[in-house]
């Protein structure tokens, strides 16, 4: 019955439950701290950071950005289809989002593997330390997000539309958007900033 409560309050509607936002906003505060730290240490040694940055594969970074943006878009379509009573579409759309997430992990895996095979590790220099740690922590969020998407699909399959918990679906969707948003800041910071 939570579905009704949610759709009725269109004005000032908070997706998911308040608690999810404690986590999401909290997480974004920590990542902001990461970003500020990166910018601070970059300013101390701009040359090292720019020369190291040139060794990153911008195409892979851009591909991953596209994958996450597409994935977020499919999550939006999925949630919308539930409100438009097109519930059959939702698991499929979330499924596409899920595979975009898996694609992100694969691209990241090959990117890391290539770096390590060229002898570039977190101990190479400060830039690569931040590169590995921040994208590693972000990757951990992607893993959790993929799990959340899988959970959302299973929940839909199990409950259909009758006893569907929209608060759960919206909370999961919001989390996935956060994962996307963090990458959208992390990508230019690591790969593009001049």
């Amino acid at each position, binding site marked *: 019955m939570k579905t009704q409560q949610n759709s009725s309050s269109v004005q000032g509607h908070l997706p998911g*439950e*308040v*608690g*999810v936002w*404690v*986590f999401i906003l*909290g*997480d974004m505060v*920590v990542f902001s*701290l990461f970003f500020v*730290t990166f910018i601070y*240490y970059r300013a101390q040694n701009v040359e090292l950071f720019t020369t190291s940055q040139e060794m990153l594969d911008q195409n892979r970074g851009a591909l991953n950005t596209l994958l996450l943006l597409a994935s977020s878009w499919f999550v939006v379509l999925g949630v919308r289809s539930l409100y438009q009573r097109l519930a059959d579409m939702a698991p499929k759309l979330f499924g596409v989002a899920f595979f975009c997430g898996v694609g992100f992990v694969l691209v990241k895996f090959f990117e890391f593997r290539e770096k390590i095979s060229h002898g570039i590790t*977190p*101990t190479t220099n*400060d830039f690569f*330390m931040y590169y590995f*740690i921040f994208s590693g*922590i972000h990757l951990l969020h992607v893993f959790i997000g993929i799990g959340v998407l899988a959970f959302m699909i299973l929940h839909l399959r199990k409950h259909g539309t009758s006893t569907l918990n929209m608060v759960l679906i919206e909370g999961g969707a919001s989390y996935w958007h956060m994962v996307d948003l963090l990458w959208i800041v992390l990508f230019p910071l690591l790969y593009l900033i001049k």
Partner: protein
Amino acid sequence: MNTRNQLICAHSTVIFVFFTLVGLVFLTGWVPPPSPALTAEQTAAIFTNNTQLRIGLALIAFVSPLFMGLAMAIAAQLKRIEGSSHVLSNLQLLMAAVGVLAIQFPTLAWLGISYRPGLSPEIIQTFNDVCWFIFLGAVSPGVFQPLAIGLCILGSESSEEVYPRWLGYGNLWLAFLLAPGVLIPFFMTGPFAWNGLFSFWLALNVFFFWMILNYIYTLKAIRAQQASEQQVTWNRVEMPGTVEHHGARA
């Protein structure tokens, strides 16, 4: 009666936080900690003839088991959520016990390297490294305890709200904040070294913030339980009268 013992456990948090901070801030003076980048001789000098440091370490070691008080009170409240198969509340309790060891072992080992004069600086340096790796780097019990608490609160299916749901998410978030401690053994400088922004400053603040937050909401939960139990006893006293009124139903 049950709730009074819970309150004793919960309030031991105050003693733990107060004396740990006194030990850390005033006696050892390790806020911030000595840098990992010091030479062996510089590190050894910290532990030579430093009675104040030794008293501080002994104090921290002594009060550290009081950390279990909060964990025990939380466990008692989580059991109200979980019912008879209270695995997550036990899991967080055991994580807390392991966490206490991660305070006791390094503090006693620090006392060990400041016990005899004339130890070689390299030995002192190595022991000091290991102590910091455990004191701030062995974060996994500190990650898994809030994780267990958070999952337990979020998984609640009872109608009665023991803890607010956002506190469940809050615990998950704080668990994540402590996690960068695993990077401590890999860095001597920068934000992930044991005196760095994430490994020390953030971890220290998060840890005490987490304790105080859970302390406040555990106290609220205990008071709510107390109130509901008093109501039950009150109803029992009233029983003889009500039985007559509703005699037909009985």
